[in-house]
């Protein structure tokens, strides 16, 4: 019989555990607090401190726009669901997305990414004009309030890989609109939805 030498417990590596890839069976969603009597809200923090997780750094030498469809498509290659991003979709488009995802037995995340992957090269015509309207009379240009969306939007949170996140960011930069507008436009084309 041997007597074990007492040793301190090693520090557990929870970081690696937390970065373990998961399978996305269900599209994660978040919504804004329900309409009536919103609870007290804390002030917004700078975005840098709000990311729940820091995903592994992508290869900086590779331009985001050059990412292949397989990296945009959830079916392609290795996946790590590390980065949560929120997407605001018009209510009817949100509903159609979930109906379509259910019909295809896939997730809303997969459907969104597939839509962007399939349509990203042809989105320009479907996107709203990103130029900010302003009135140039008088002393200086006065930016005008953006027209409010006719339809309320629903927040949906999806978890994407760094490559997917980078590609979406590249698209928003290319078209000068928000991520939600890019995904909405892609979904409208992909799902054949008009209006909204």
């Amino acid at each position: 019989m041997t007597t074990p030498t007492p040793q301190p417990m090693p520090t557990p590596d929870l970081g690696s555990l937390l970065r373990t890839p998961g399978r996305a069976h269900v599209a994660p969603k978040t919504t804004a607090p329900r309409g009536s009597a919103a609870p007290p809200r804390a002030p917004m923090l700078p975005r840098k401190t709000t990311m729940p997780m820091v995903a592994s750094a992508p290869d900086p030498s590779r331009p985001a726009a050059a990412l292949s469809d397989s990296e945009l498509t959830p079916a392609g290659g290795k996946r790590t669901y590390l980065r949560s991003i929120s997407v605001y979709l018009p209510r009817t488009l949100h509903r159609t997305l979930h109906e379509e995802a259910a019909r295809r037995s896939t997730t809303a995340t997969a459907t969104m990414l597939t839509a962007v992957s399939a349509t990203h090269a042809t989105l320009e015509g479907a996107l709203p004009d990103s130029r900010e309207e302003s009135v140039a009379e008088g002393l200086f240009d006065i930016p005008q309030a953006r027209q409010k969306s006719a339809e309320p939007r629903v927040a949906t949170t999806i978890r994407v890989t760094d490559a997917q996140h980078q590609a979406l960011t590249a698209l928003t930069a290319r078209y000068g609109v928000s991520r939600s507008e890019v995904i909405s436009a892609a979904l409208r084309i992909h799902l054949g939805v008009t209006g909204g």
Partner: protein
Amino acid sequence: MNRDGLTRVVAIANGKGGVGKTTLAATLAGMAAEAGYRVLLIDLDPQGNVGEDLGYTGAGRGDDGAALVAALAAGAPLAPVLTGVRERLDVVCGGERLEDLGGLLLARQKRGVQLGDTLAEPLSQLLAAAEYDLVVIDCPPGDATLQLLALGAARWLVIPTRGDAASLKGMTRIVQRLVVAREHNPSLELLGVVLFGISSSATRLRREIQSQIRTSLGGAAPLFETTVRHSIAATDARAQGLLIQEHAAAVGGEPFWQALRAGRSPSSPGSAPALAEDYATLAHDILLRIASYENAPIEDEASTA
């Protein structure tokens, strides 16, 4: 299933007992309710100690988890057992009826039944009918099945831990379960880790433990800056069925002459106000962090609009 209603569900869990889960769950729920949130507290622990913290066990109320078992095992609608435990705070009670639930659900799982939505589904239905701003789930330390039910329904996980090796081991266990639960509930995030039970004067020890936890987390999740000190006031508060802030107000709110006039020795608030302040700061940090995640995309929208 539709998880739209489950965005403000916070599970408080650690794979080890005695680390502050129940007190944190009850105090967070109580403080949020006091601050104006409509809060539902779900006690998923067979020990049912939320009842002691909120004082309803002493008042002979609660159902030992019967309603929760009916909802999880028999598909009955989930509903708060006690409403108005404090203003704006309702409770789904836990208790010893939950002891057999883990085994029952495990048997179902072995027959191929998916358990991931067992709590999420009835909770989602409850939240669709009754509007709560925050749901807090107190998880049991040992029952993996019940923990997975909670993690299947939660959007956020908060892990309270003490600085000892056993608590860190418990933390590892619950993170492993988070990874498992994410297969079914990918929106689940670790909101942060809270360090409990460190003496307020043990600065060096606190720094060392915080550093060890940060190393352990490897940047994948944050450690809350606020720590909750070790204090006998927590025991006093629970003995009276009061939350720590209520206890602090009670012992600190009585002028000495009132006690003398009543023939009692004047009470000293001791460390109760400081402990209450720790919890208040922590509750603020937790709510702030949830709000910051919720608000972040709005900021992003604004910046790109």
